[in-house]
């Protein structure tokens, strides 16, 4: 079953379309990265998923149940934890009181016992009794994540969770999300930090102009256009050998190396074998993968034109 899904989900304001017929399916237990430039419709999509914004068309589903906007709350939200843009906190209450007030306001009661546990998880135990007014941005962000984790959620929807954290803090939160995902929690995380998504997500969806323009595992997204950097003793002869292979493009690389682009179905070991058979000594054969950032930029540019 999908933990989270949308079917033809659309939102427009007047004649401006923010999200257009979006079909998402995130299986249970997946750590899903939701990428897109600012204004791509990520936040609107997340708000529709959580029943805050009414779709113009289509529907959103959490754990197989429809999410509706109306007088009463969709009960399924009990099993969902969320961070939507910045954390929302009462500045005049302490960190612990913020969690307490949110927990007591509605939803499951068993959350109360988890307050100390989630404060510990996000590393805020020491500052828990300080007023939130005195918190740094990083501490506010941690408290926001603590709040999302409070209900032992089956699904976590996090919008830019590492916003405002320093690099060790980001690493810590990424590790936490990875552990939660390994424990079976479905994590849906939006980000504009590509290395972050690349480092932690099982699957990635790229949103641009309100449409899903690409989806797959990070390596699937990166795969087309993979390069090899080859260092040999005789670059000229090696270039000749490789140029004769079908589906291979050869360019001169830096410092006498060769930059080779492989077509579909060609394995780097095949290239190596051909070179060695031709009596060329191969010093190094290094796959140079495109970063997700390059892929991302190419996709965005492609979708704009």
């Amino acid at each position, binding site marked *: 079953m999908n933990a989270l899904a949308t079917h033809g989900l659309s939102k427009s304001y007047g004649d401006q379309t923010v999200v257009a017929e979006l079909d998402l399916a995130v299986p249970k237990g997946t750590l899903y990265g939701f990428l897109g430039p600012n204004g791509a419709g990520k936040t609107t999509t997340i708000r529709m998923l*959580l029943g*805050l914004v009414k779709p113009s068309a289509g529907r959103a589903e959490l754990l197989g149940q429809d999410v509706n906007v109306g007088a009463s*709350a969709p009960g399924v939200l009990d099993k969902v934890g969320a961070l939507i843009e910045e954390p929302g906190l009462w*500045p005049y209450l302490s960190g612990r009181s913020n969690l307490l007030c949110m927990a007591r306001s509605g*939803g499951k009661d068993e959350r109360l016992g988890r307050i100390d546990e989630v404060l510990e998880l996000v590393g805020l135990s020491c500052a828990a009794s300080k007023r939130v007014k005195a918190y740094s941005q990083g501490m506010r962000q941690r408290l926001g994540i603590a709040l999302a984790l409070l209900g032992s959620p089956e699904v976590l929807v996090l919008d830019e969770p590492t916003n405002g954290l320093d690099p060790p803090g980001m690493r810590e939160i990424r590790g936490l999300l990875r552990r939660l995902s390994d424990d079976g929690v479905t994590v849906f995380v939006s980000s504009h930090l590509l290395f972050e998504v690349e480092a932690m997500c099982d699957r990635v969806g790229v949103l641009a102009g309100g449409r899903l323009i690409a989806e797959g595992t990070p390596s699937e997204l990166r795969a087309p256009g993979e390069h090899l950097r080859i260092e040999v003793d005789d670059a000229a002869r090696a270039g000749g050998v490789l140029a004769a292979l079908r589906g291979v493009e050869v360019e001169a690389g830096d410092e006498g190396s060769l930059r080779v682009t492989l077509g579909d179905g060609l394995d780097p070991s095949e290239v190596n074998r051909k070179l060695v058979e031709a009596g060329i000594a191969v010093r190094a054969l290094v796959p140079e993968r495109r970063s997700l950032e390059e892929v991302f930029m190419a996709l965005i540019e492609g979708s704009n034109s």
Partner: protein
Amino acid sequence: MFWVELFKAARRWRTWLLGAALGGIPIILVISLLLSPGSGSSGEDGPPFYELIVRNGFFTPLAALGALQVFLLPLDASLLSGDAVAGEAATGTLRYLLVRPVGRLRLILSKYAAAVVLITLLILWVTIVGLVAGGAAYGWGPMPTLSGSTLSPGAALLRIGAAACYIATGMGALAAVGVFASTLSDSAPGASVATVALAIVSQILESLSALAPIHTFLISERWLAFVDLFRDPIVWGEMAEGLVAHALYAAVFVALAGAILAHKDVMS
């Protein structure tokens, strides 16, 4: 959620400042009268308690409430109710409450109930401070009524309590308008100002006799009817009308607030 609202209010300086400011009014009233024992009368439009205040400590809370009801109590009711939804929107907590999940209708009802309880507590607080300050200055002798008879201290306390509760219903009606305004705006001060403006405009229109035909629909029209509790026998007519009018105002505006929030895209 209702109890959480009261807990949050108790943790805010604002609530205690309001209490201190309102509690100060009857004390100032008593002190100023003690300092100028000759004058005990007020302007033409004020409730007729000022003339009586020097005679009896039971009148101090009523004089204080009568003075506060013109502006300060509506201001506080607007402040507390205008904050209901817009204040949560401004701190960004509204979206988190809704995904907790708290039902949207339940959120409105809890917020409204908490605002009414807080306003009622503030009114009772003014009443108690007034009783203590007035009693300390003038004693609690038998209370004269506007009809000339006197009330035993027990009966006087009962009627003062009833007056405070009646005033609270009027402020409750205004708070419903405040909660409604609060669903229309993401700015709590904006919603509060609109609400207190309504209370002021209503009182101005009320004073224009040319507009007499519409007076019955004005929110503040029956706010002063509690004076009738201090006639002998009590005149119930206008207060009964007032209770119905306040209940109608509350029901209509809370329902509107619920309907608006239930269909609103929460973008805050």
